[in-house]
């Protein structure tokens, strides 16, 4: 069964909090990883690997660089 946007958002918030310490509540769909959350490219790799475990969706490197915002990641995971 497909996860809802809210469920995916909660999962991403948990991952980002674990990796960067940013409170999950600040991880909202419109946030840009670099400009708003100050997440560097190494941490993005960690987030992508953790997302793969959490959601069972692999994010290839050539796709990862196009995912600029939290909403982009949610959309990718939803397929």
């Amino acid at each position: 069964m497909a996860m809802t946007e809210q469920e995916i958002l909660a999962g991403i918030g948990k991952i980002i909090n674990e990796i960067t310490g940013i409170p999950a509540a600040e991880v909202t769909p419109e946030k840009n990883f670099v400009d708003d959350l100050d997440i560097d490219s190494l941490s993005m790799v960690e987030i992508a690997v953790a997302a793969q475990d959490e959601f069972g969706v692999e994010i290839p490197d050539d796709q990862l660089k196009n995912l600029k915002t939290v909403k982009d990641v949610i959309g990718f995971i939803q397929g």
Partner: protein
Amino acid sequence: MSTDQVRVVVTGFGATTPLGGDVASTWSALLAGQSGVRTLTEDWVDSVPVKFAAVAAVDPAEVLPRPEARRLDRAEQLALVAAREAWAHAGIEKVDPERLGVVVGSGIGGITTILSAYDTFKEKGWQRLSPYTVPMLMPNGPAGWIGIEVGARAGVHATVSACATGAESIGYAIEMIRSGRADVVVAGGTEAAIHPLNIGSFAAMRAMSTRNDDPQGASRPWDRGRDGFVLGEGAGIVVLESEEHARARGATVYAVAAGVGYSADAHHIAQPEPTGAGVMLAMRRALENAGLTGQDIRHVNAHATSTPAGDVVETIAIKEVIGGHPLVTATKSMTGHLLGGAGGIESVFTILALHERIVPGTINVEDLDDGIEVDLVLGAPRALPDGRIAAINNSFGFGGHDVAVAFTSV
């Protein structure tokens, strides 16, 4: 005293050691003669012949924010904790970043990261390696992180000379300031190598004590029954500053980092040269570099690791170069041997001894070995005299590295 050199002063220090998570707790434990050694309880302990170590009293991963800790090797965590204490202690509010440097090394680097990352690689594949694996395992990682933390742009360096690393770093920092490359340098050493591979490897050299039934009595420099060093972990960092820079900002000065002497044994990759020639040369050069005579030196924090080969010959070298008068102590009897971190914490101890005029005693000496003709501080601490006095911190390392750092009181 040479007058043409820039004087370098100590304006801050920090440490996290097997005796305490900061300088104050470590120093009071040292003066109380406490041991930081404990029995290991890890499940791998059955695989190695040494079942104890001097583990850091405060786990740095518990002190640092979790997201920060997870991207740092333990040696980097320890170094950052000590550097933050030292930096806060120095109280530098403003410094030109291009005049600020870092020299912090370790003996082995991110060894536990290397080993655990290789396990991950074999079991789960490269995709599961942390993207921070390389910055965690590189030996210059601690220096790099501290440089970012304080904004140092004059140069960030990591010396590597096994157990002489911390002292060599401080020597290099003195020279950075004297040569005009920097006004302020954060310097010292760190190590986090308590892992079964390291214990097994040092045990294979027969370098470690195997006194498993008495871990706190295992590190016993100069005792006839000594049977090897005790592995420790931690970091010691100092903030060095040109006297002019320190005076201009009204800084508290704890000691003068008066000079450094380097030499090498050119003898054996791991065994000390039996006449102490290299050690004598390092101490002579430290005196010369600092503009001091043997009479000025009232205290030596000896390298003395509790191995059968090195402890006595160091005292012979001290007697020859400095004389029989300085109060000589081996703080490794309490902290264990922090390898690359040793010169860092022991320089902090040497500075504190001068500043507070007290020398911590060496513990566990029950049956003093023959041939020692210097004034060892055994058991209770002893006082240093008033007036302008000097002290030396000796650090020697596998590879034949000999380093002596000289400090004077203010």
